[in-house]
């Protein structure tokens, strides 16, 4: 794996992400500054980490989405390159037009940090091959604006094309408003692009990869990616 982790001013989970990539894949990712125009040669995975790029002062992700590096990411994605956006990264990918929809403020208008349960809808993607379809994983969320919404037509397409990859669920995998902490439509926690090579998700799988720190449910995502990319190479 040769991952590139993008760093925008105000991003703050890039160190967590880099450590997780190193722990799971065994190779150190490149940290790529937002003002760069190109991704490092042979990059096979772009990760847009979480944080508060530009303080989230305009609209989450809006300014970062217009950084020079994002043109390179669009080109990379257009060629089928794998792109993972987590939390603020998901918001940036939406603002950059790589994924549809927007993330609104949480329904209760408060920042929420807690472990949530996600139902993995599909296991036949490079991001989720480490899981079984229908499996429930427990990973943390930490966001104030994670309430996913898009117009009815877009939601119907996402659902129809099987592009909803993760949903907030109860511990036994039921979709239930009581377990949908931010009020996202259809309990959507993560979606992929039309080609399936760009994943955006609000929860933080990178924070649940070590037994000693709590749980390892997030590991499957990175292990799956490592395997997918290892095989491709």
């Amino acid at each position: 794996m040769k991952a590139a982790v993008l760093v925008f001013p105000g991003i703050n989970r890039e160190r967590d992400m880099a450590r997780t990539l190193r722990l799971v894949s065994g190779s150190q990712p490149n940290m790529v500054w937002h003002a760069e125009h190109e991704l490092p040669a042979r990059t096979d995975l772009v990760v847009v980490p979480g944080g508060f790029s530009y303080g989230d002062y305009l609209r989450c992700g809006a300014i970062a989405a217009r950084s020079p590096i994002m043109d390179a990411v669009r080109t990379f994605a257009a060629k089928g390159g794998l792109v993972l956006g987590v939390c603020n990264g998901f918001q940036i990918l939406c603002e950059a037009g790589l994924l549809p929809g927007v993330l609104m403020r949480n329904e209760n208008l408060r920042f929420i940090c807690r472990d949530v349960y996600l139902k993995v809808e599909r296991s036949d993607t490079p991001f989720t091959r480490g899981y079984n379809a229908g499996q429930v994983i427990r990973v943390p969320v930490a966001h104030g604006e994670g309430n996913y919404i898009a117009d009815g037509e877009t939601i119907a397409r996402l659902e129809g094309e099987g592009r909803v990859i993760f949903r907030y669920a109860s511990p036994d995998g039921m979709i239930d408003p009581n377990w949908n902490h931010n009020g996202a439509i259809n309990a959507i926690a993560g979606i992929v692009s039309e080609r399936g090579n760009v994943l955006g998700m609000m929860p933080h799988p990178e924070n649940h990869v070590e037994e000693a720190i709590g749980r390892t449910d997030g590991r499957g995502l990175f292990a799956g990616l490592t395997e997918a990319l290892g095989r491709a190479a």
Partner: protein
Amino acid sequence: MNPNTTKITPALVAEHGLKPDEYQRILDLIGREPTLTELGIFSAMWNEHCSYKSSKVHLRGLPTKAAWVIQGPGENAGVIDIGDGQACVFKMESHNHPSYIEPYQGAATGVGGILRDVFTMGARPIACLNALSFGAPEHAKTRHLVSGVVAGIGGYGNSFGVPTVGGSVRFHSRYDGNILVNAMAVGLAETSKIFYAAASGVGMPIVYLGSKTGRDGIHGASMASAEFDDDSAEKRPTVQVGDPFSEKLLLEACLEIMEKGCVIAIQDMGAAGLTSSATEMGAKGDLGVTLDLDKVPCREEGMTAYEMMLSESQERMLMVLKPEKEKEAEAIFRKWGLDFAIVGETTPSKRFIVCHKGEVMADLPIKELGDSAPEYKRPFVTAQKLPVIDAGAVEARGSIADALERLIATPDLCSKRWVWEQYDYIIGGNTVQRPGGDAAVVRVEDGPKALAMTTDVTPRYCEANPFEGGKQAVAECWRNLTAVGARPLAITDNLNFGNPERPEIMGQFVGCVRGIAEACKALDFPVVSGNVSLYNETNGKAILPTPSIGGVGLLEDFTKSATLAFKQDGDAILVVGETAGWLGQSIYLREICAREEGAPPPVDLIEERENGDFVRSLILDGTASAVHDLSDGGLLVALAEMAMAGDIGATLDAPPDDIPAHAYWFGEDQARYIVTVAAGKVDAVLARARNASVLVSQIGKTGGETLALHGERALTVADLNRRSEAWLPAYMAGEA
């Protein structure tokens, strides 16, 4: 007319918070009438907040040294050695008055300020904690203040990117008009790369870093040094506005220039902004400083020298730069999109000279600005000791089961999940123990070391007996660190009191500080940093004396840390320490009997140490399966918390005959812990305890879905959890 030459009238002096004799001191010091800018500088340096004029003489009695202390009080933050060339840098500071006036920004900038104190020293912040005291829930402003303060703390820390891992929240009517927001930050540095404030070398460039200077926060430190009255809301413009995004950039840029060896000295602009940072760097380095205010990056046009010198705009730093590194340092700051301006230089004159538009606006002796600040030995009276309440004379109200159900749903004892879920406590990927335990545990980089941290104080004890209360605050902090298996290393103290000009308040201060000193000495637990916040009163009504203690301890191997949750059915439940049933000043007496009375429980520091060392040994050798310290609410509340955390019940033996049941279950005797061990290990543990002269007794065993007390109806753990979790969300929704 140049406003700088404004005639200094007694009214103007008073407006600057300076007493007539203090003004006379200024005249004697400089031998002429000060300019307006100079008067502003003196008011900024000589207010209580910056000068510690009422407290200094007593703070000297605190122990500040140990083999592991690298830097004690007097710098931006304290520094302790945690081995392997690593240091822990930490401090706690109050932002009380601003948070009452403007809760979101007041709390946010409190967090911002303490983070800057830590990273100014070259440390990357790895955790934040806080200690919050609000007014009674029924007070009209409390809900609004809780909501704003919590959102502000989260808003700043979450965006900055530091996990907020612990803290405390209390409610009491004595904080109705004057809440307390104490924020603590903990950082990690290399022992060989600690940065200090003392400038060195003549003619060295002084660089202004960070955000631009605006008109916000002018006289903030003076506001923090006066009591409140009904017109306090008018002080809103003195509250600063936080920008965590800029602070995050400032952090990265500062750490980068430090790494590149560009920095001679660095000081954050906190209270009294440019004035205090510039004079401190000069005075500590035995040098003069000349500032050219024309070079200061300003957010607003037409700012006067007076305004620039007193602005408390946030996210700013002052640095003495190695001249040969100027280009490199500037490039780093430009990369992060931050202001970088050379605004002055060090001089051999030992004068603090401020120039603006070609004129000298201030010319003052730099050392005397700080050193000659007034220092008061204010009169104090020690309050009469309160009678010890005989537990036998306190009539039980209702059953033990009823009392427990009520207690765990009271504002002080209920679950604070509603609060800490608004803080990102996992960022960094090192949070071993999350909020809700005795102490937070944060792994140091990739481990195996970890730091344990907590904030503690029991204000009602401090009010009833300042000396014992001061001791207890330190002892409980030490106990909480011990309960997770850490070796307690050092503390930061944040001393919140009322008006020191009143002898009874000064008596509380003196008593608490003496108690803190006594406990720190006995427990080898020095004070390495701190902050004093006085004048916490409104219309003459003072807060409860609240010396918040923030403690840090070290775990050599984070995987050995203990948690309070019951782990499995069939473990033996042991109490370490002596239970006598002390009800004076207990939560039971207050909440169930509606009496805030009596002497608080005394703290035997020798017993505290012996019991703690014994518990720690049980944790480190893997004998203890769960550990919890005993504090507010006593034995049964602690047991309920352990049951709720583990979702496992317990069967508890009947109380001994010589202690009334309610005193046994809810008394707050000190130096105690609950420890669970596998049933087969009980005899060995009891034998070890006897050898160590530590009192340990088995009081029950874990298992089942209920807390089963002898002679009481069974309480299901699920129902206890529901009650404990319900109050705060309901209250905040306006339903309780």
